[in-house]
């Protein structure tokens, strides 16, 4: 053990030394695990900021076994300090070990019932593990979980704003998008929530998984809140399993959506009351209530399609509100949130609906359109690269070769009828 420590201290200087060190460590890994209880004092002899790789191997072996409550607090501190001082290049040589250590860190933080303690270290860990900001690691969902449990929704948004193009494990993506959806809902960013939940329900899956089912329930509700409607069918690129089964597994929500589309708030409220327990046990009752109150907005928005002006009393009647004052407050809120263009005339008790004043001529708007175009161009380039890579992929070519008969002769002229590797 002491010999190993000396070697770590000696071989952590240059990149090539570190690679030789890695081989030594891999060979010593089993014995490290065997002597895990003896290891903690050796950690003090190593400097996490210089000997990151060696420290990681020792730390991973130390934390592999069961941890008691007393040990948890000191381990949490040790790991947090390690994460903040370790060298990214070194720990990236052993990503699986780093991920294991961080996951145990999360478990211990939760054991101590202090999720807030884990938020900043987990964020640092992600930044060190990631190869770029487009890379989704196994630590992303852990980070979002800690944010959810400690109610640090705003901190989570900084990660959610980054576009992801590379994923290590599909399961990470499911959880990341599901938790991300929940956080976006908490910050009332429904468009983003919809995007993330959409990714979960349309992701490739050979069998429907529990995350997708829960995501689908929220997806329906957020769709109602944000768009005022729910599309009856999933897009064609969703997996066949999802298309066949998700709706049956989320029956109460699908029925809620169809009640919503009838536009009668009293019926909707009755349905919600009757099925309250189901929504509550799914922890979705709050979201359901938001969906119900979004109906007033929807109904008022619909009025703008038919009327230029309407009295507050008329609005109250048509939308089933109790008084013109209530209607006024609803319209005021919608104007504030930019969901409607209108002015209220208290003298006559009328509301005048207006056109969107945006002329799309200002410099500000040009900047916005410009940056959207830039983003689209970046995505387009990436898609071209992916397309090229996939065209050379043997599995893809084999499948295309097998299904050749279904396609036009000209499309697959170059692929032999049977493609065997």
């Amino acid at each position, binding site marked *: 053990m002491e010999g190993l420590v000396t070697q770590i201290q000696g071989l952590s200087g240059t990149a090539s030394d570190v690679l030789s060190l890695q081989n030594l460590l891999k060979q010593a890994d089993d014995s490290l695990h065997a002597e895990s209880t003896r290891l903690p004092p050796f950690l003090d002899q190593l400097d996490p900021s210089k000997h990151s790789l060696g420290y990681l191997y020792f730390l991973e072996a130390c934390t592999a076994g069961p941890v008691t409550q007393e040990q948890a607090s000191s381990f949490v501190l040790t790991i947090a300090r390690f994460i903040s001082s370790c060298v990214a290049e070194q720990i990236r040589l052993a990503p699986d070990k780093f991920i294991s250590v961080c996951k145990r860190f999360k478990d211990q933080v939760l054991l101590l019932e202090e999720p*807030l*303690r884990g938020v900043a270290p987990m964020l640092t860990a992600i930044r060190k593990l990631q190869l770029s900001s487009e890379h989704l690691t196994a630590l992303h969902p852990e980070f979002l979980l800690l944010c959810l449990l400690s109610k640090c929704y705003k901190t989570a948004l900084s990660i959610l704003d980054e576009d992801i193009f590379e994923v290590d494990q599909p399961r990470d993506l499911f959880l990341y998008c599901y938790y991300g959806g929940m956080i976006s809902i908490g910050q*009332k960013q429904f468009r983003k929530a919809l995007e993330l939940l959409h990714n979960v329900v349309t992701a490739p899956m050979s069998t429907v998984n529990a995350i997708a089912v829960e995501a689908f329930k929220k997806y329906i509700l957020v769709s109602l809140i944000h768009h005022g409607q729910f599309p009856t069918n999933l897009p064609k690129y969703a997996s066949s399993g999802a298309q066949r089964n998700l709706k049956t597994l989320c029956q109460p929500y699908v029925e809620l959506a169809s009640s919503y589309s009838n536009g009668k708030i009293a019926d909707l409220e009755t349905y919600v009351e009757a099925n309250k327990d189901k929504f509550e046990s799914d922890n979705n009752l709050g979201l359901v209530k938001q969906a119900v109150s979004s109906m007033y907005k929807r109904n008022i928005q619909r009025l703008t399609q038919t009327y230029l002006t309407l009295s507050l009393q008329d609005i109250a009647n048509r939308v089933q509100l109790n008084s013109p004052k209530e209607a006024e407050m609803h319209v*005021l809120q919608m104007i504030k949130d930019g969901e409607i263009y209108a002015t*209220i005339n*208290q003298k006559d008790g009328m509301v005048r609906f207006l056109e969107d004043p945006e002329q799309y001529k*200002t*410099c500000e708007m040009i900047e916005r359109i410009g940056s959207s175009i830039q983003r689209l161009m970046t995505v*387009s380039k990436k898609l071209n690269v992916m397309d090229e890579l996939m065209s050379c992929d043997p599995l893809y070519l084999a499948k295309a070769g097998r299904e050749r008969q279904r396609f036009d002769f000209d499309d697959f002229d170059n692929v032999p009828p049977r493609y065997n590797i």
Partner: protein
Amino acid sequence: MDFSVVNQALSSKSFHKMADICDALMLQSAAEGVPFRHEWPFVLHLLAHIYVDDVNSARFLWKSIPATIKESQPELVAAWKIGQKLWTRDYAGVYEAIRGFDWTQQTQLLVAAFSELYTTRMFALLQSAYSTISIQDAAQFLGMNEEDATNYVLQQGWTVDPTSRMLTVTKQAIVKEQKLDPGKLQRLTEYVFHLEH
């Protein structure tokens, strides 16, 4: 605990930065395992979120505060009352909550700044949403008595009809930049190139 960063933001009147500063400091302290909650300036933290109109974060912060701390700090409860009124959109109630407590000197700075900002925001809302509004309602939205409210809006260019007690809104025309600069030409070239290939 070292709160100098927070105090500095407060004394330099960088109120809009305080929420981020407090969040970052809290995460840092928590990561070090230091029990910080009994010393933490939750009142300032909460009001900092309210100042930048992030009622969601204020709400989550409130939920995460232990009950014992809530019970021992009446100023904290009073600060949350402002957040509550904002959350339930009780526009007039916000002013009542602001005035309903004798704030400590430090807190008073932030509360006063927020009150001014809130009145400005409310006025902007009234200006965009109403063509005519009663003096009574305007006074409620602006947190002033009817006479002060009338004078405030008259200074901004509105007109008043004393018999019907109605105010007529005059919108200020906002001129937005519409000139293009030649740098955009480079970008347009890139778009066309991209579309051609």
